[in-house]
């Protein structure tokens, strides 16, 4: 009986424990209900997050070509090493492995990791750039042991001709915080064009990145593609530039400070645009090292500066072309009027010297241009007055931007009475007009403006818009308020500068080619007497100008050369122009005879 009693108690306990079991099972089921039903959407999202990875598909930036279709900039594949921190099991071991493959110090990679840069769209940190193919292969082989590493293919800009085309093309750099907040179409980590046509035509060149959504497994390996929006490739950009002429100009300016502009006066197409010293834009393609950047900033003569459009200089005697046009147009002088040059003349109680100490004697307009007689133009300046001079300077393109398709252009300065009283705050002194008459004084021009001026003289007064984009729509055959016959007469005088004895531009003469040109020599430091600038220290020597076009009857090419502290225009600048004419027309003749 005792046995049965104890069995009854056991049965009670079993019933109780069974009830407890049911309660526990219901509790666990409630746990499943909470996770699967109440938070099902949340976990479904997390699951998608786990397996779906979005990554941008880089669009290829458009190539940049010269007028003959020669490639100036191309894209080359480069391999970056990325690290997914969350997939790392043993960080030190991973870094040791990477350091060994790359033959670098672990600490170096550690600090790269610390910087925590990550390319757009990749949830990983950039450890190293520009891996060799052998290194890429080693990381590929170790993919199973080291799933934390990823190789990203990234395209870099290769500027084939480096410094020779630097100022025209510009370079690429990472978008800045300000540009990002500026509401543009940029995203963090984007490369955008800086300077040159890379900047001007950034939108056309860049295209639009695509996006790829892929299914990955727990090791981050691609299982299949889920969805892809293909990238829109950037447009190619054909420039008006003639690579051979550009290279020649670049070579001619090597070791000098200055710039060369060559353009076609018929349509404003720029064939060469060189600023010296230059820099290698390829250093920006690899991520720029701080010391390289500092070196560039501290280099003498500021290589980043595009002297052809950003720097302004006194035009010196080149301005006599404007004076001649103004004098004839206003009827202040006739071609036959003559002025006595005895080496200097007195205006407003001050003696103004001619560059030629012995003087030019009796000189008419043609002779004054040919021999660059200062005294003649002092007289002309006095007769014209600053207002009329300024009007013609502006009509010929000075004092305002040329609208070239490059950023950072300087408008230069054409002074007049209003400028003096409003901007300068000092009244205009009549003596200043005398200085302006030979291109000195407050007058400032860029080499590109001078090229535009000479192009307008060359095409007998048609407006020219210098440009680099071959597809640009620019006005042609639009006549400025200038008399073509007067420009014809001035052109003939400019021909004499180069081709007749006693012309100051004789050193630019090319046999069989009718070049018209004008030299300019700009005093950097005011001198009280006739001083040969070659005896001065380099930074006080004169600037040398030579501006020209050819052939004089139906001009095809304008060449402007400017050499900072180069000395006389006739000796420092004119020979460079001659070399460029030879290059251009020799080439053209050969092509012509071959065709």
């Amino acid at each position, binding site marked *: 009986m005792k046995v049965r*009693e104890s069995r009854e108690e056991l049965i009670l*306990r*079993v019933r109780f424990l*069974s009830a407890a079991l049911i309660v526990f099972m219901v509790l666990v089921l409630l746990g499943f209900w909470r996770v699967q039903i109440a938070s099902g959407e949340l976990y479904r999202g997390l699951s998608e997050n*786990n397996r779906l990875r979005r990554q941008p598909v880089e669009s290829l930036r458009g190539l940049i070509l010269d007028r003959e279709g020669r490639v100036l900039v191309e894209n080359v594949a480069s391999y970056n090493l990325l690290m997914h921190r969350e997939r790392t099991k043993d960080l030190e071991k991973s870094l040791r492995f990477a350091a060994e493959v790359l033959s670098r110090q672990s600490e170096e990679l550690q600090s790269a990791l610390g910087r925590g840069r990550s390319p757009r769209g990749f949830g990983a940190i950039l450890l190293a750039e520009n891996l060799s193919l052998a290194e890429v292969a080693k990381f590929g082989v170790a993919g199973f042991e080291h799933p934390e590493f990823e190789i990203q293919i990234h395209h870099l800009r290769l500027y084939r001709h480096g410094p020779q085309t630097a100022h025209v093309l510009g370079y690429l750099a990472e978008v800045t915080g300000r540009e990002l907040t500026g509401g543009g179409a940029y995203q963090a980590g984007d490369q955008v064009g800086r300077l040159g046509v890379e900047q001007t035509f950034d939108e056309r060149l860049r295209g639009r990145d695509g996006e790829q959504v892929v299914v990955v497994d727990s090791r981050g390996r691609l299982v299949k593609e889920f969805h892809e929006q293909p990238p829109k490739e950037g447009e190619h950009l054909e420039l008006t530039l003639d690579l051979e002429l550009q290279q020649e100009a670049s070579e001619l300016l090597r070791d000098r400070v200055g710039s060369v502009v060559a353009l076609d006066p018929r349509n404003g197409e720029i064939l060469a645009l060189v600023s010296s010293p230059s820099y290698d834009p390829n250093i920006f393609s690899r991520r720029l090292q701080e010391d390289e950047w500092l070196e560039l900033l501290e280099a003498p003569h500021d290589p980043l500066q595009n002297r052809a459009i950003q720097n302004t200089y006194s035009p010196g005697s080149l301005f006599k072309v404007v004076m001649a046009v103004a004098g004839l147009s206003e009827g202040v002088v006739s071609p036959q009027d003559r002025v006595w040059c005895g080496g200097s003349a007195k205006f407003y109680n001050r003696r103004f010297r001619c560059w030629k100490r012995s003087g030019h004697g009796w000189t008419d307009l043609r002779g004054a241009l040919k021999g660059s007689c200062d005294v003649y133009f002092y007289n002309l300046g006095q007769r014209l007055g600053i207002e009329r001079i300024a009007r013609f300077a502006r009509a010929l393109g000075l004092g305002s931007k040329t609208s070239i398709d490059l950023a950072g252009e300087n408008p230069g300065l054409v002074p007049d009475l209003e400028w003096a009283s409003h901007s300068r705050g000092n009244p205009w002194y009549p003596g200043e007009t005398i200085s302006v008459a030979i291109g000195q004084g407050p007058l400032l021009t860029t080499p590109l403006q001078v090229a535009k001026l000479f192009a307008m003289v060359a095409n007998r007064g048609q407006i020219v818009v210098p440009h680099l984009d071959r597809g640009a729509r620019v006005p042609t055959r639009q006549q400025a308020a200038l008399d073509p016959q007067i420009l014809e007469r001035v052109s003939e005088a400019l021909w004499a500068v180069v081709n007749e004895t006693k012309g100051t531009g004789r050193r630019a003469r090319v046999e069989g080619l009718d070049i018209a040109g004008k030299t300019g020599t700009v005093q950097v430091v005011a001198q009280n007497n006739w001083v040969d600038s070659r005896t001065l220290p380099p930074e006080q020597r004169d600037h040398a100008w030579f501006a020209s076009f050819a052939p004089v009857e139906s001009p095809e090419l304008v060449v402007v050369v400017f050499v900072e502290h180069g000395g006389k225009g006739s000796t420092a600048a004119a020979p460079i122009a001659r070399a460029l004419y030879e290059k251009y027309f020799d080439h053209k003749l050969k092509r012509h005879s071959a065709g």
Partner: protein
Amino acid sequence: MRNTSTTSSSVIALADAQPALRYLTGVDWALLVSAVALAIVGLATVHSASAELAMDYLPRQGVWFGLGLLCLVAAASIDYHDLLDHSLLIYALALAGLLLVFFVGHEAGGAQSRLGFGSFSLQPSEFAKLASAILLSRYLGDIKQPFLDLKGIATASFIVLVPVSLVVLEPDLGSAAMFMPILVGMLLVAGVRGRTIAAAVVTALVLAGAVWTFGMKDYQRQRVVTFLSPESDPLGAGYQVRQSKIAVGSGGLVGQGYMQGTQSQLRFLPARHTDFVFAVLAEEWGFLGVVAVYGLYATFLLCAARIALRARNRAGILLVCGLVALLAFHILYNTAMVVGLVPITGIPLPFLSYGGSFTLMCFTATGLILGVDLRRYVNR
């Protein structure tokens, strides 16, 4: 069979007339069918979970399933009274098996816990659990008092402590811990006073504190910390909980479809054919699948409890209760772990998880339970 019950029925009369049919009529079919159904669900899920692995575990688990059925029939065929009579010998053999692994065992997962036969290997600790349950039911069955005294509790604890110590030394703490549900379940059924339970709880807390401070390795402490706040380390130790919950949660109501669960097919889920097999099921079949499988488990456990209720004697009740406690604990803990309710430990899910010894143990335990039921009218 020597003494038939005095409270006879028509079934017994039929059974007496035709002894061969006796087993069939006495079998608790609901229990057997639910176990086999769970095992089939297990085979399908293991296949899905390992389809992306180098080896599909389906054929192997099929073999274990077949061997398990044989063990079930064998365990059900033997009169448990005979097992109780030889419980000390069985216990001694189990201990010998546990000792053997120290000399000829294989290592797996950091513990030397397996005995190998060709490419198959067995874990003696699983059979030591059954042997301990048998010896415990023999010992506790003989105590004919409403409550156990301290000596009884101490002796019962000692019976379990010997194999537990050996398993701890392997060291396989997870497996060692699974002896506790057997002991606790059987002690509770055999009768423990409230004040003794209170004292045991206090002792356990003190012991837990001591173990935390002196007895645990850092990674084990980390697991507990991770359980308490899994978001503290989502990439390290919290990874498994997080991935398991994502798998379960993304199943929603109806699941992503068989073989379509991305968490398991893309290998985000760890140990998906063993400890986390239920997460695969939950992802692919959703809450409805979970409820269905839970229904099978409830059927199985409640049928087993019913067998305990109608068992002939104390020892039978206790044996069934010990086995049910073991299986129930596995089921509750594993599923609660998968859904993130309890810390992660290597506790497999009966009938569903891949694993040889564990599958055999589950089927043998089922066979023992059925055996107790078949002999409910045998008085001895």
